[in-house]
């Protein structure tokens, strides 16, 4: 082991350490920036002039226009998941538990997560692209010099609309996925309808559904803050708009999956502390 090799290795380790440190600092400051951005924007929702009309307009876009795609994907998710569970449970002679297993999985996990991912890709991407285009085309500057608070006018209504719409879309996903599950169990593999519903009603509680709806609202907050932040801070023309959209959607989707795990644990702890589900 020569002295030169040791020096070079030490330098490489130094470089690696500093690069990781810079990335960590950048990540923490980005999360901090986004949090403040979301907080500042939502705070303005309570200030006059009220932007209820804008909130409704964005709810129509995020909620109403996402219903078709959510309904379609959820039915097929329900069908596919039910069939896989059926194949597994058949091995242990427990096919009557397919309904409740799928119901729990859908309402608590897959419903909010898949709804979050789909809506983040569709509405979040559109948000980032729209705001980015407004930024590079000077439309945001125009709003600024017109004396209009851009965060209040453009950001807050989008975030609040996403928070309101996501639980509703999650509920739609849950329902349609269970329609898919019911169709497969009753009409394709021939399980008994009465047992199917009885087992589900014995197992699934209202708080399971609420857990998913709550997660949906959190995912709505997350993707809307991330995507509006990226769009709002777009620089560099058409290329910048593309990058902002891409990063907004990717960060939102990855965050939804990661945060879901931590959220699940926090909810478990809440159940333990409050005695729910005992």
């Amino acid at each position: 082991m020569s002295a030169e090799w040791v020096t070079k290795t030490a330098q490489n380790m130094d470089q690696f350490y500093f690069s990781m440190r810079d990335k960590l600092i950048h990540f923490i400051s980005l999360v901090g920036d986004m949090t403040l951005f979301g907080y500042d924007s939502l705070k303005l929702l309570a200030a006059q002039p009220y932007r209820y009309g804008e909130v409704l307009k964005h709810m129509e876009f995020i909620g109403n226009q996402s219903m078709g795609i959510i309904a379609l994907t959820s039915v097929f998710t329900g069908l596919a998941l039910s069939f896989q569970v059926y194949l597994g449970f058949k091995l242990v002679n427990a096919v009557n538990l397919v309904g409740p297993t799928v119901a729990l999985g859908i309402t608590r996990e897959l419903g909010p997560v898949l709804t979050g991912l789909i809506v983040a890709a569709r509405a979040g991407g559109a948000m980032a692209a729209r705001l980015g285009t407004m930024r590079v085309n000077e439309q945001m500057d125009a709003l600024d010099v017109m004396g209009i608070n851009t965060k209040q006018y453009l950001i807050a209504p989008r975030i609040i609309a996403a928070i309101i719409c996501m639980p509703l879309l999650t509920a739609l996903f849950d329902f349609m996925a269970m329609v898919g599950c019911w169709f497969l169990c009753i009409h394709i593999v021939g399980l008994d309808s009465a047992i199917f519903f009885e087992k589900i009603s014995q197992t699934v509680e209202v708080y399971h559904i609420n857990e998913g709806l709550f997660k949906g609202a959190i995912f709505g907050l997350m993707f809307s803050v991330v995507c509006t932040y990226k769009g709002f801070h777009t620089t560099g023309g058409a290329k910048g708009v593309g990058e902002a959209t891409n990063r907004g959607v990717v960060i939102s989707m990855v965050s939804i999956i990661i945060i879901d795990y931590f959220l699940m644990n926090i909810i478990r702890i809440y159940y333990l502390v409050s005695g729910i589900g005992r």
Partner: protein
Amino acid sequence: MVNTYKGQFSIELTELKKSFDNGKDFILKGLNLKIPRGSLTAIIGFSGTGKSVMLKHILGLYKPTSGRVEILGQDLSQLNENDLTKFRCNYGVLFQSAALFDDMTVLENVCFPLEEHRRHLKKEQVIQIAFNKLNMVGLESKHFEKLPSQISGGMQKRTGLARALALDPEILIYDEPTTGLDPILTEMVDNLILETHKLNQGTTSVMVSHDLAAAFRIADFIVMLDAGKVLLSGTAQDFFKSDIELVKRFVDKGMKH
């Protein structure tokens, strides 16, 4: 037109300095400028001399590293973010790209600032004011219901100007209004600026431009920036008579184009 400010100068910049890298390099290096109320002032200069940065200070979009920005007698540094937002109602800005809201029609674009800041007005009154402003800039009513993407560049500029005029601003700013336009459209926009200024007596108009010929033709006060400072300010005659080498070069090149 309602002009309430009666001071001698609408815009006063004193020892204005701006650095984006904690004082290592200054874009504006102690800029002093006074723009008389009611004048049509052209700000000219080579690229990178600080025109846009200066403009953003006037609009309150940038905070100076040091120095003072006084608009209509109000020191902008004394205003908090909310007050500054409200204060910006005193400005009307025509952007280089017109910056029209692409999801609104021509008429809606002009109505928008009125709906935001003149909430006591009825819908019909707002539309009437918007009609008047669009007529003032010479846009035909058959285009009022079209989207910005459905009208020509010249019409977009006219709409942008009508929108800038909607709130009867004290200060009207034209940010490179003719950059990238063909000669015929350039002349049309220049004439539009001149006519608008004549029609709105008392309004201070500031035009940031590379177009020296237009500046000499329509402006009554010209300011040339160089390296973050005012190199020369005065009338067109002052520029033609100037002995400053850079001014001579700029005038020679500018008048040839």
